[in-house]
């Protein structure tokens, strides 16, 4: 059992950057390029880890502690979120609230790091980050509340183990709504198109990438890794809802989940290739839309 | 006796209406003086002309004050300021008379709701006394000159006096003390104040006395 619990976390640690690789490959495919290797994110992280670092004279200790806090937070979160029906290291009632707020903590430090550099661009990014996250938070929590109310449990592990295909049959509309809401949350929180464009070359239009403009070397590596982890964890939540495979075979469960994760990454890549980034003014509408979907789901479930 | 008192009452009503309708200050002063003298005789009348020193003294003081001292004082004040008429009263003369008549009716009505608990000499005393008080107040309200206002006060005082003398038989001391004090106020205090006003403003148009407001 303990082996499986650790596996759950380790799986996240190992496979997380792969998602980035898959997305990039997908995008390359649709752009007709060969693209970078699938494992490029791993190489990048490794390369950065071995580099030296440049710090701005404006920065303070906050700038150095930030990446550490961010990484620690995703580690804890990885111990909470079950993937593919695996048991988790930390499982208690209300852990889903902790999960949501842990990301708040990491965001808090990311934003502060950005402000610490005294750069107006990074300040701009930070400002957008807090704006959009303030809107995704209700979508995430109300969505979680909806499934919690449906299943009658208040810990992620229990919730996901009790969602099954019957549940889908009983409350398909609600689940679909939540699925879409969480997909938007997933895209927004991970700074993907249509909310943010990680590949843009204009600092003015970026959100997450611009906040870490001044990070270099191992710090940047940690941040990149944490971001990948975050994507994995949010993806895991989505997986838990959409693919409720609970067979006796752990291997089957995990594979199914991994498959969905792969699809999710590909989907993200497709979205990024086929859509343009929304104008910043329209992003809040999208996010409020997500929150509305969550609310509708809750209404459907509790009616 | 009954008739005499009734006559006096009717005289009162008429003089009141005259006061309301007249603009010449000199005439007004004289009318009030006559009112005062006539009313000064009423206590003696009430006592059936029996001579009694206290009563006689009271009457004498009143007659002297209202009939002689006061008109003199006011006439002098009037001369000092060289105003012989009330100019632009707040309520015009004819309207004043109309209002006065209305007041008379109201006073009649009021007194009909106030039946006297004891036998009285004249049925007219209550309404007329009321009316005199009201017309005094009306004079104060409708006129601008301080002199006219003092006159109004005197008329009002006459009304109260009528009440006291004709109806309040059990408390002669109270009536006499009260009336004397009232007259004292009218003559001396208001007189003195008027003197000061005169000095300070060179006129006694109370129109000017409206700096203190809100």
């Amino acid at each position, binding site marked *: 059992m303990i082996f499986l619990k650790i596996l759950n976390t380790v799986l996240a640690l190992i496979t997380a950057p792969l998602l980035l690789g898959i997305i990039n490959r997908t995008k390359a495919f649709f752009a007709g390029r060969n693209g970078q290797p699938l494992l490029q994110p791993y190489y990048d992280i490794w390369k950065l*880890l071995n580099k030296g*670092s*440049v710090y*701005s004279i*404006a920065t*303070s200790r*906050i700038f*150095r502690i930030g990446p*550490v806090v961010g990484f620690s937070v995703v580690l804890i979160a990885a*111990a*909470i979120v079950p993937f593919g029906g695996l048991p988790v290291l*930390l499982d*208690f*009632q*209300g852990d889903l*609230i*902790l999960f949501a*707020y*842990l990301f*708040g*903590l990491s965001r*808090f430090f990311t*934003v*502060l790091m*950005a*402000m610490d550099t*005294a*750069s*107006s661009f990074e*300040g*701009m990014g930070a*400002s957008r980050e*807090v*704006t959009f*996250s*303030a809107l995704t*938070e*209700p979508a*995430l*929590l*109300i969505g979680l509340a909806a499934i919690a109310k449906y299943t009658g449990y208040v810990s992620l592990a229990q919730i996901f183990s009790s969602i099954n295909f019957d549940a889908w049959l009983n409350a398909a509309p609600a689940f679909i709504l939540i699925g879409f809401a969480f997909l938007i949350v997933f895209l927004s929180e991970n700074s993907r198109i249509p909310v943010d464009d990680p590949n843009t070359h204009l*600092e003015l239009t970026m959100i997450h990438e611009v906040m870490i*403009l*001044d990070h270099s070397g*191992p710090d940047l590596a940690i941040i990149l890794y944490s971001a990948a982890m975050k994507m994995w964890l949010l993806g895991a939540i989505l997986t838990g809802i959409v693919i409720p495979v609970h067979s006796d075979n752990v291997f089957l469960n995990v594979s199914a989940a991994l498959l969905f994760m792969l699809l999710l990454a590909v989907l993200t890549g497709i979205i990024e290739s086929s859509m343009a980034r929304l104008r910043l003014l329209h992003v809040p509408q999208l996010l409020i839309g997500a*929150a509305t979907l969550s609310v509708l789901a*809750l*209404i459907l479930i509790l*009616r | 006796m009954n008739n005499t008192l009734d006559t006096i009452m009717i005289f009162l009503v008429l003089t009141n209406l005259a006061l309301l309708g007249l603009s010449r200050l000199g005439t007004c002063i004289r009318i009030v003086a006559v009112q005062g003298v006539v009313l000064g005789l009423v206590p003696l009348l009430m006592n059936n002309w029996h001579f009694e020193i206290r009563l006689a003294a009271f009457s004498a003081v009143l007659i002297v004050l209202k009939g002689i001292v006061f008109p003199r004082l006011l006439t002098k004040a009037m001369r000092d300021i060289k105003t012989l008429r009330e100019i632009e009263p707040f309520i015009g003369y004819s309207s004043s008379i109309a209002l006065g008549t209305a007041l008379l009716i*109201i006073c009649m009505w009021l007194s009909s*709701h*106030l039946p006297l608990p004891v036998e009285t000499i004249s049925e007219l005393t209550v309404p007329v006394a009321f009316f005199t008080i009201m017309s005094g*107040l009306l004079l*104060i309200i*409708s006129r*601008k000159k301080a002199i006219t206002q003092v006159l109004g006060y005197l008329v009002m005082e006459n009304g109260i006096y009528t009440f006291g003398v004709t109806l309040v038989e059990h408390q002669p001391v109270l009536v006499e003390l009260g009336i004397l004090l009232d007259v004292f106020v009218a003559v001396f205090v208001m007189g003195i104040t008027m003197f000061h006003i005169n000095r300070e403003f060179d006129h006694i148009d*109370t*129109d000017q006395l*409206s700096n203190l407001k*809100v």
Partner: protein
Amino acid sequence: MSIFILGLTVILAGGLVSIFLGRRPALASFLAVAGAAVGSIISIFPCFKILLSGIAESMRLEWNVPFGSFFIKIDAISALFLIPIFGLSAIAAVYGMGYLSSYSSRKNLGVHWFFYNLLLIAMALVVVARNGVLFLVSWEIMSLSSFFLVTFEYEQEKTQKAGLIYLIAMHIGTAFLIAFFVLLGNHNGSMDFDKISVLPSSLASILFLLAIVGFGTKAGFMPFHVWLPYAHPAAPSHVSAVMSGVMIKTGIYGLVRTLTLLGTPPEWWCWTLIIIGAVSGVLGVLFALAQHDLKRLLAYHSVENIGIITIGLGVGLLGISKGSPVLVVLGFTGGLFHVINHAVFKGLLFLCAGSILHSCGTGHIDRLGGIIKRMPWTACTFLIGAIAISGLPPLNGFVSEFMIYLGVFKSDTGSGMNELIPSLIVIGSLSLIGGLALACFTKAFGVIFLGLPRSSEAQHAHEAGTCMRFSMVILAACCVILGIFSPLVIRFAENVIPEITSLNTEQIQIELSSASGILNHFVAASLILMGIIGIITVLHKLLFGRRIVREAVTWDCGYARPEPRMQYTATSFAQPLVDLFRFFLRTNKDISRSEDIFPAQSRLNTDTSDICEKYIYQPGFKFLSELLAKLRWLQHGRIQLYILYIALTLLILLIWKLMKA
């Protein structure tokens, strides 16, 4: 009880001595602060004892005023509120000694400290009073002494206005309370709280509404909160800390006490509380976001936190009316725990704001920057406070919000609209508040402490003195301790909740144990989190041991001459959210932009005035004063008119009264 009284006496003695030592400010301050601190420490012990044992102590003396009796009683609820009152006031007093030392030549500090100690005593009396008259008198002494504290710098126009608004708000609130206590007292036949008879439901509802307005004005419920953003910035910081940290909580106390007096609540009371809480919370934090002045920002956060507390109470009340022990325990525990937490972190933040004000001379956020390097203690403690108030793990602020969330998540009151709406309102507003508070405090901390100094004041900032640092560190430590020991701390509710509800103790015990079990997990997670942070920091250090680390200017995207003024300001940081919620905020923008080919100076000024003040109170008062002004012709100086009044009055009275006869 005698120990409690002894403590109060010491506090009073300190205050009285200091008022006679106006000529020797240092001694006066020291004695008063010593009195406040020692007295608080003495008095706080019986409170702990009562809170832990649940055995109330009371005292009743004759008091020769109409309907009054000196009846005081400390039960668990009182003790719960007394502990932060004494704790925070003592700490803030120590801080104040350092903070005010620079005023000693200009001001009579003796008077200030007298009122400070008086405020402390009055707050304590409010919480223990069990007689309506005693309560009202203490309540008003509390308002008045805090008024004198707020108007410490009375020669300033800002303070003058603040004092005026505060006083008027308090008075109107008290008018409602007078009606409240009188109605209650008349029904019970005595102004003492222990003579309770069952209230008819209509009367109970009227009383509830009166209490909401009366106590809500003090607590800062949304439409009645207008005094907060004025009073807190105007007051000296230690006073703001006490007022925001504990004084406004007496409003919450009053509400809780009311609930114990009114019997079983109908459901709409719970709705009312939850909606008031949600509105106060969300709008409070929104307005905070739009502020430029640090203390004003913090003041709006008080509104927000009062909102969270009220949501908690509303959830608890919902539990009572539906008979759900989970909701009762988690709602009340969360709400009341937030009372303590807010006292700690808001006290801390105001003290930090005071240090900034003290050292930079301005609380205007956009004129600060980069002072973390010069004020590391203040920065560090402010950071802890900021994390706590944003409700982020692992500090105390998260725990209380967590419990309220958990209550709603776990509620088992069946389905349907009755279940749906509270869940929706509570979760929606709490999560929105969380996100916005985060935005607000990253703005505050980021702009004030990080980056480069935006003005010469900020450039020459200096760290606060020992007294001030001491107080801030203690409070910051409390934030951590309350977070880490939360499973133990929430046991306070064991004795408090039975005072509020008639729920059986066993159920409460079960629910509390389960909650504290859950919190154990949470604490484990936080400890691990902190452990990991520690380990990784060490690894990080090791990693950098052999690396080349260089320093350079910030990447400026090709700008030739970056300068501190080009940094993102607080205003620009908050702009997207402010724009998004412009319907509520109605920020006034004053732009002067040059249209030339070679643009010269242009400026932008934003100002977010309070929506309630601007759209409710100001027009209301304006209407009223215009209406009254129209009636002033009634007395315009002419004596004729005056005599006419007499004559008319007489005539009308005679006609009217004699006609009847």
